[in-house]
């Protein structure tokens, strides 16, 4: 007698007697340990998920981004204050006893910690789930299915142009399967969702041609499946090792890894009496020394505030142009939160730019062009929404232009817009560093927000950019086979040329971008390129395009041997 291929929720359970398996509802502690298990499950497969990236250059690191987003969510719950507004009493461990409150904390943590495209989508799924169950102390199968559906709906609305064959498709299929299993236990609902998710993941290459060309499935979808599978396995009591991972351990691991914050240095303040230099002169000098620069006052008295690693240099400058009074420098690691509130009161009005950049040359260039703060990050280190938000809040200007300088960071940057109360945050969607440079060139800290937004967007549209790197793995890209180690030129994400030699790829890229008479061609060479090699290639470019100006800059950026801009 043929057996039905239909999935039986309990069929995968190794231990049918596990109490959670038969539990009709999930309370907060059970939900939290299941989520922690799911996060650990994803974390153990991070490298496998990262390897699914289809681009022949290190791209976004989907697995890492999703894993860090989950960690941030759990970390938020671990540090949540014991008495939430809803009045639900905390448990002995400090974990909220109320599932709705727990979900709310998770969603908030994920939102702040979201990294990369996939991390942002995951954070939206959690947010939608949380919004569907704000007053539920426990979750039954029905609530879980509704939550998965609400999560998908929320994520779908958030993505500007949703693409099929991605995590969105997988989340939709998983939610549909969960709703079909609503009468089951929570374990059964998650099991149904996970089963549907892996089937959906397997289908992604049929929906997204680039996946098929490279013989992989969608990385974000795979990551989401792993989370659902981790939930289902844990609730089924199938992996005691997973169950042993408590949220406290996850929280500790996160705290240990969050030491990457750039140092804030000293919050430095002083007065210059009888200043002989105009305010602008003092301001530009202070901008060269540090961040969060505020210079206010008049001819007789200038008040200076900045964050700098070396306050003495600032004081010495003050003494060279006037009489320094009431100088103080406080180490900010202890008190950077109160300092942020402090500048807000000092600062009158105006615009500032926060940019994401990596590489010493690029960082200095953005700073010299007037970026008030630089968030370290780029192609393989997408800063989180929280990192970007912190930088936005630290810069004491009411209007902030965010330059993500990478396509994968744009979604996280857009999240910041809704999270910075009292600030106007405008995302200028720069997809690479040279676009960011062009936009920043058009920035004028004195101009109104609208004018700046317009001129920065126009500058961005007028520059033609591309990059040259070496393929880290063989790949099929735009119908062409690229060998590992080959120099490849990309423009707008599309393959332009592949060659054994970097110089050949650079020149092919410039020809593709099109260099007209009078254009400025800028080559930013990366950390892996010597100045001599860059000069040789620039020389060839100058010879081929004699009516253009060719400039070379030591960008020091990782991954990309050359970034090119034609304007």
């Amino acid at each position, binding site marked *: 007698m043929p057996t039905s291929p239909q999935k039986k929720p309990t069929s995968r359970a190794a231990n049918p007697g596990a109490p959670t398996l038969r539990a009709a509802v999930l309370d907060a502690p059970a939900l939290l340990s299941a989520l922690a298990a799911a996060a650990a499950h994803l974390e153990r497969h991070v490298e496998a998920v990262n390897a699914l990236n289809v681009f022949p250059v290190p791209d976004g690191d989907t697995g890492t981004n999703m894993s860090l987003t989950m960690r941030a969510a759990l970390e938020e719950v671990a540090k949540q204050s014991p008495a939430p507004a809803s009045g639900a009493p905390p448990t002995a461990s400090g974990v909220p006893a109320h599932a709705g409150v727990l979900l709310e904390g998770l969603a908030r943590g994920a939102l702040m910690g979201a990294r990369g495209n996939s991390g942002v989508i995951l954070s939206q799924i959690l947010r939608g789930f949380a919004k569907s169950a704000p007053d539920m102390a426990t979750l039954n199968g029905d609530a879980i299915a509704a939550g998965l559906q609400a999560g998908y709906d929320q994520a779908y609305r958030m993505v500007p142009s949703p693409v099929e064959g991605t995590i969105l498709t997988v989340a939709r299929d998983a939610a549909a399967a969960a709703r079909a299993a609503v009468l089951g236990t929570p374990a059964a609902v998650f099991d149904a969702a996970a089963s549907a998710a892996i089937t959906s993941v397997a289908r992604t290459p049929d929906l997204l041609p680039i996946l098929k060309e490279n013989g992989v499935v969608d990385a974000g979808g795979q990551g989401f499946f792993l989370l659902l599978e981790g939930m289902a396995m844990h609730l089924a009591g199938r992996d005691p090792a997973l169950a042993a991972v408590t949220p406290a351990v996850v929280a500790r691991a996160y705290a240990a890894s969050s030491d990457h914050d750039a140092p804030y240095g000293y919050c430095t303040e002083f007065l210059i009496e009888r200043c002989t230099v105009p305010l602008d002169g003092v301001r*530009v000098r202070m901008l060269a020394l540090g961040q969060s620069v505020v210079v206010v006052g008049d001819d007789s008295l200038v008040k200076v505030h900045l964050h700098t690693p070396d306050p003495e240099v600032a004081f010495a400058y003050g003494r060279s142009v006037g009489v320094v009074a009431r100088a103080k420098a406080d180490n900010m690691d202890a008190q950077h939160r109160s300092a942020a509130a402090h500048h807000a009161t000092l600062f009158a009005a105006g615009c500032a730019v926060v940019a994401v950049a990596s590489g010493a040359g690029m960082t200095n260039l953005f700073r010299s*062009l007037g970026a008030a703060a630089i968030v370290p990050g780029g192609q393989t280190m997408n800063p989180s929404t929280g990192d970007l938000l912190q930088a936005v809040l630290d810069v004491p200007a009411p209007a902030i232009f965010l330059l993500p300088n990478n396509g994968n960071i744009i979604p996280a940057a857009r999240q910041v817009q809704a999270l910075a109360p009292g600030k106007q945050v405008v995302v200028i969607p720069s997809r690479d560093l040279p676009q960011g440079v062009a936009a920043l*060139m058009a920035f004028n800290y004195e101009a109104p927000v609208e004018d700046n937004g317009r001129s920065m967007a126009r500058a961005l549209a007028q520059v033609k950019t591309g990059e040259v790197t070496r393929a880290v793995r063989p790949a099929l890209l735009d119908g062409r086979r690229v060998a590992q180690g080959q120099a490849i030129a990309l423009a707008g994400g599309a393959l332009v040329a592949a060659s054994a030699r970097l110089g050949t790829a650079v020149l092919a890229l410039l020809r593709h971008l099109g260099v007209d008479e009078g254009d400025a061609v800028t080559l930013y060479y990366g950390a892996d390129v010597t100045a001599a090699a860059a000069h040789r290639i620039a020389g060839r470019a100058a010879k081929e395009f004699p009516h253009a*100006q060719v*400039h070379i800059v030591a960008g020091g950026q990782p991954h990309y041997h050359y970034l090119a801009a034609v304007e």
Partner: protein
Amino acid sequence: MTLRIVTDSTCDLPPDLLRDLNVTVVPCNLHFGTDVLRDSVDITPPQFYQRLASAKALPTTSQPSVGLFLETYRRLAGEATEVLSLHISQKLSGTHASAVQAVAELASPLRVQVVDSTQVSLGLGFLVREAARMARDGATLGQAHAFLRDAIPAMRSYVTVDTLGYLVRGGRASRMQGFFAGMLDIKPIIVVRDGETHPAGRVRSRRRAMQSFQEIAAQAGKLRALGFMQAACLADAAALADSCSSIFPRADMLIREFTPVMGAHLGPGALGMALWPGSPP
């Protein structure tokens, strides 16, 4: 009642015009080491750029002394009853302060009004020229002052430099900004309005800086006067003037060289433009 106009050497008006209109020019000072030279008196612009090229240390500048103003006003007391002393923006130079100090110490029936032009170079020069014409035609200090109150806020001047090096040494730009500006051929465009310098844009290449100037002029609507200033780059100023003359066939146009004191701050290759919006009289 005789009104006379006093200004300083940063007004960049032609010497014969100043002579014809009976304008007294108080020179600022240029310091090459221990050498103190009176701006455009002891040193001409061509001599200045020649000396600049071989100077070990860059020159500095200073405002005219209170004593020099005092001496000037006392001398004028013999031939005029009123003096309008119109100067470079007091936020950019101590010249105005020196003049005010001199007036406080001037024990004389001469009425002296010190006015901050909030401008530099021909932005100041156009105001001086008009005030001097009014004085020549018999205007009183009150009438000239009233005219300036209306004219000053509208005046704009723009400057672009060929190298940020001089602004870096003067503390108006950071070393890092100078470094990248050189590397990327970034030309800043600076506007002088309300007495202060403000950023007005950044472009790549001199050619685009000149295009920006032309666009700025074209967007200004009607112009009463249009001035171009240059520091050892006459050809660029002439080309710019040429491209603007078709847009403003009726505007009064002047091409001048930056005085050495201005050149010391901006460096050779600096190009300036002064716009006086309004209908030609």
